[in-house]
């Protein structure tokens, strides 16, 4: 909490000194009937590359004045002022520039008046000044009396002079809902007008008047005080103002002092204590207690500018796959890994785009904290909607279900269908590489849809959905969500339930297990301290164990065995799998993988491609898949699968298939499916028999 020195705000400060006045002038300008600039929205800020800055214009303006005042070069001065006017009229005007524009016209009028060939444009210039600023005070130091009179006569012929008595000063005057600078003298077009005067902390007043040309008018506004106000500026200039937990508004940048906000006034402050909170993105929030003296007696309070301390945090992102690019809140922040990136504390949207797949997360970074993200890409599924315009049963419910599919597909990033037709959507996705998988529906009959899931490489599967089923998407969702295991924990020990014996009875073990002390034809009775009564208990412990070693007991002997993760082959024709989704997932996982992991992912990619009848692509994967010669799924398995693919590629590939099977036969430790599967040696031998019986 901070104590504040209170000041009274001087509302009746001169126009150029008062930020509020500047604001009002800007509003007047915006409301003035001025043709819009070509190709520019009224709210757009001009690009500095196209328009000269205010400072350079100011400098040019001073040079132009000097050209005539000190050097007497009237033509050069005129040219300079014409250029300034052109530059200013081509851009959106700030109150400062507006004033400079009118001053330039004032100077040009005086110069033209002295140039016979241009004297005809004098009246036009004076009219332009009035168009831009009806209350412009002509510069009497440079303008002769004749021109002054001409300007006043022009003004009197078009506007009515209205004198205001305002109490208190410093409020907001609006004429027909258009705010004006609250000055004691204004020039207003003739006719009926609704004029209101208001000021925070006072009861506003409104009068309807009829103005007639050449008949000046005086209006009195005396406002009654009804509450206190608190006015302040903040740094940074843009923030949210909350009072007692209720949002009061947002501050805007002060055009005069861009480091600060324009003054923000809390109006109608109720009696009692108040809690003022100022929030700004990337800054620490400030809480200020306003004691009862702020609200009673009624007064206007001006606080010193409130400074918020910057809110800083760090973000580090690591990923097994290094080819990702980080986008923080949509802004590119470079490629992975990201280390100690300075960011604002608070909520951020993290997006990492990988060559395949993406990572999305909404993170909450604490003040001063170091937020670490271990990113891993997820599959992106884009639903392209339904092809064609045909009607079918429960169409609305089906379309709604499509929009809500993300909740049912938690393991992937779901991109719901857009209004575009499926082909256009696909084109965009392919161009931007913003999806890995597409889902599209085709109408088969009024009660049946065909669902087609495809990778962007056009490997696809399709299913028929019955629209009248309670949940037509259920089967497809289940398939997409099913990811088969690629690894299995193994000890290199085979066990069985032996009749009449308690425990998992060992009937086979690899040499390492035997060397570690394991005895064949004896039961394992404990694993990791847990009693093992049968093989079911054995496999339960094995499945849930995550350490590198596992202790087990045979009789009174404790043996420590190494735990190994062994590759598994996915099923090749399972109706419960979605092979295109599986293929995309395997491709994403393979991005950052190395060694045996990569070989396993490639081998399983090959199996999905074999399922999808893409034997050539399967072969490419198998060529990249390199295992060591070891027990279980290994290089022999790869060679065997190569042989199967080559066999499917036609008779011309048969000699190469033969070679692959012959090689598979030599790798005797390899098995099919998993470490407990049949020997590849045997299968390759049989395959060879088939080729050359």
């Amino acid at each position, binding site marked *: 909490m901070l104590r504040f020195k209170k000041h009274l705000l001087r509302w009746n400060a001169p126009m150029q000194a008062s930020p509020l006045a500047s604001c009002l002038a800007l509003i007047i300008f915006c409301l003035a009937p001025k043709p819009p600039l070509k190709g520019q929205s009224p709210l757009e800020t001009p690009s500095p590359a196209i328009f000269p800055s205010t400072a350079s214009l100011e400098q040019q303006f001073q040079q132009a004045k000097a050209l005539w005042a000190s050097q007497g070069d009237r033509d050069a001065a005129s040219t300079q002022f014409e250029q300034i006017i052109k530059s200013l009229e081509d851009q959106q005007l700030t109150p400062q520039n507006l004033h400079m524009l009118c001053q330039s016209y004032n100077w040009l009028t005086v110069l033209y008046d002295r140039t016979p060939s241009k004297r005809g444009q004098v009246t036009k210039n004076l009219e332009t000044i009035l168009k831009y600023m009806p209350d412009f005070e002509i510069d009497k130091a440079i303008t002769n009396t004749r021109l002054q009179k001409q300007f006043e006569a022009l003004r009197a012929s078009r506007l009515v002079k209205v004198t205001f008595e305002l109490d208190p000063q410093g409020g907001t005057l609006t004429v027909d809902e258009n705010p004006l600078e609250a000055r004691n003298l204004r020039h207003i077009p003739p006719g009926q007008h609704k004029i209101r005067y208001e000021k925070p902390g006072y009861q506003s007043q409104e009068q309807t008047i009829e103005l007639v040309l050449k008949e000046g008018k005086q209006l009195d506004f005396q406002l009654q005080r009804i509450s206190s106000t608190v006015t302040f500026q903040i740094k940074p200039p843009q923030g949210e103002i909350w009072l007692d937990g209720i949002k009061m508004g947002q501050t805007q940048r002060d055009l005069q002092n861009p480091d600060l906000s324009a003054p923000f006034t809390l109006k109608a402050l109720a009696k009692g204590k108040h809690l003022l909170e100022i929030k700004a993105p990337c800054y620490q929030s400030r809480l200020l207690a306003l004691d009862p003296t702020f609200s009673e007696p009624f007064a206007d309070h001006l606080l010193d500018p409130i400074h918020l301390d910057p809110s800083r945090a760090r973000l580090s992102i690591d990923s097994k796959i290094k080819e990702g690019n980080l986008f923080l809140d949509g802004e590119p922040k470079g490629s992975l890994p990201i280390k100690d990136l300075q960011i604002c504390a608070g909520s951020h949207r993290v997006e990492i785009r990988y060559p395949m797949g993406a990572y999305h997360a909404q993170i909450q970074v604490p003040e001063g904290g170091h937020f670490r993200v271990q990113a891993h890409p997820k599959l992106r599924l884009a639903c392209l909607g339904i092809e064609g315009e045909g009607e079918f049963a429960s169409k609305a419910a089906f379309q709604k279900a499509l929009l809500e599919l993300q909740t049912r597909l938690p393991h992937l990033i779901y991109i719901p269908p857009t209004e575009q037709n499926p082909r256009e959507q696909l084109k965009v996705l392919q161009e931007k590489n913003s999806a890995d998988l597409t889902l599209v529906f085709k109408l088969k009959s009024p009660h049946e849809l065909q669902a087609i899931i495809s990778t962007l490489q056009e490997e696809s599967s399709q299913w028929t959905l019955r629209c009248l089923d309670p949940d037509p998407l259920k089967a497809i969702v289940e398939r997409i969500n099913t990811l088969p295991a690629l690894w299995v924990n193994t000890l290199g020990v*085979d066990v069985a339930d032996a009749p009449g014996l308690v425990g998992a009875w060992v*009937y086979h073990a690899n040499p390492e297990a035997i060397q570690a002390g394991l005895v064949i034809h004896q039961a394992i009775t404990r694993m990791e301290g847990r009693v093992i009564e049968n*093989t079911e208990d054995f496999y339960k412990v094995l499945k849930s164990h995550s350490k590198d070693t596992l202790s087990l007991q045979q009789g009174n002997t404790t043996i420590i065995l190494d735990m190994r993760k062994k590759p598994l082959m996915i*099923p090749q*024709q399972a*109706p419960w799998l979605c092979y295109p989704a599986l293929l995309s997932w395997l491709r994403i996982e393979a991005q950052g993988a190395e060694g045996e992991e990569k070989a396993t992912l490639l081998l399983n990619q090959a199996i999905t491609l074999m399922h999808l009848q893409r034997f050539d692509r399967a072969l490419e994967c198998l060529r990249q898949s390199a295992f060591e010669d070891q027990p279980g799924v290994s290089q022999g398995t790869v060679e065997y699968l190569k042989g199967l693919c080559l066999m499917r590629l036609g008779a011309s590939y048969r000699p190469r298939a033969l070679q692959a099977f012959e090689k598979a036969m030599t790798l005797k430790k390899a098995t099919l*499916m998993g470490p407990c599967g049949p*020997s590849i040696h045997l299968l390759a031998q049989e395959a060879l028999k088939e080729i050359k019986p």
Partner: protein
Amino acid sequence: MLLNPSDIKPRTLSRALLGFLAGCLLHAQIDLTERLYLSGEKAYLAERFEEAMDTWNQLIQQSPQSPFSAQALFFMAQHHVNQSQKQDRELNLNKALGALETIKQKHIAHEVAAKALLLRGRILSIQAQKQSDLKEAQGEFHRVVDLFPAHPSALEARFELGNGCMRQQQPSTAIRHFASVIQADPKATLSASAMLSMAEGFNQMGDLPSALRALSRVKHLFPETQQSQEAQWRMDLLIKHGLLRPALLSEGAWPSGQKTELKSPTHLERGIQGEIYLYQDGWDQAYERKGTEWEKVGDAFRNARAMCFDGEGLCLLSARQLRRGNGTVLELENLRDASGLCMDSWQNLWITHTKGGLTLVDVKGGTREWPAPGGVAIAPLSDGAILASDTNRSLLFLDAAGQPRLTLPYGKDFPKPFKKIVALATDPLGHVAAIVDGDFEGVAIWNRHGELLRYAEFKALGLKGKFRGLAMDRQGGLILADRSNDLLIRLN
């Protein structure tokens, strides 16, 4: 594009009209074909089979090329297969084959063709009586795999190919087919059967660890299923006989605690589901153990010398006749010295003779004679049979053609020699048990490769009697029929 009526030439108009009429006629024809098909289907579902067949036949005659004809032909074939189980087996199966052949010839591109070829292969496989007969069936299964690789029938065809290879004594080829089925979808019910068959393939090849692994997978992937139970007892037997090999012990009278009045029990046999059959010479009658009772099987049959289960029922052999499981009695010559009976995997009955030779009786009752040494007992193995020859003093492991693939001298690996074999029994895993007599009096168990697994002397078992019958039960026990004490004894 808009046409001005005046631009249309009369020839163009007549062509268009003809085209339109042809289209209408074709549409009407398609409509009628579909309605005929549906009418047949309706009759079939209402079990008005004759009406259904007539309607579908009409459809096939009218529109032989229609896809509905292909569908109708397939249903007709299925109907004939169903009928074959009730009557006129061969006739109905041949009718089914005819319908399926038409699909194969005329509708190979139709989606039902895969199923049709599969069914055709299955029928041919059922009809096969020897290895060479399986060629055509295997050809059909290969066609399904090659022509329809992504069709669900392709996996079934793979499975059938595996089964065919097993029957052809090619376990390693069979394993490859079974592995394809399992790798396609290990969770499918078909995979459970494929795993069981693959385990049997490994067992036949003598690869016990691989067989146990496959059985273990069935148990864990398909718990609480029939296949799981099947895997469990197979594992129990393989482990018990092959690996644990505990000493045989007598459990005493069987069934224990149940009082049974037997009269000269002489032959024992085990059925497909593990049920036990008994022949009592004193009653000239065969019985089946049901619950706690022995129930008579068929009529009385005098002086049975051997019995076996032939798929349809219990088959009994005497010196004069052979009574099949379906009750058919065959009067055969040359049965005077018949000593043993078993059935092979082609449904042929093998009769062994003490003076030598083997008589084969096929399903249709035809007989063949094969040379063989004099045998006292014979028992089936999946790849042939095992013959006990006292004259040769050896056990002969015969292949499907009756040729010895292995000869095991009596007494090999025994502490004492034996001279005779009184009874033989086998189990589906290829274990062979025998009651032996001579210096060594007792029982022994071998595996299909002739390795002696377990043995025990009656004396050591505390048994005394005249043991004539033997069966191996599903738990790995041996049941002995004691003729002199009118008892059944179980060894565990």
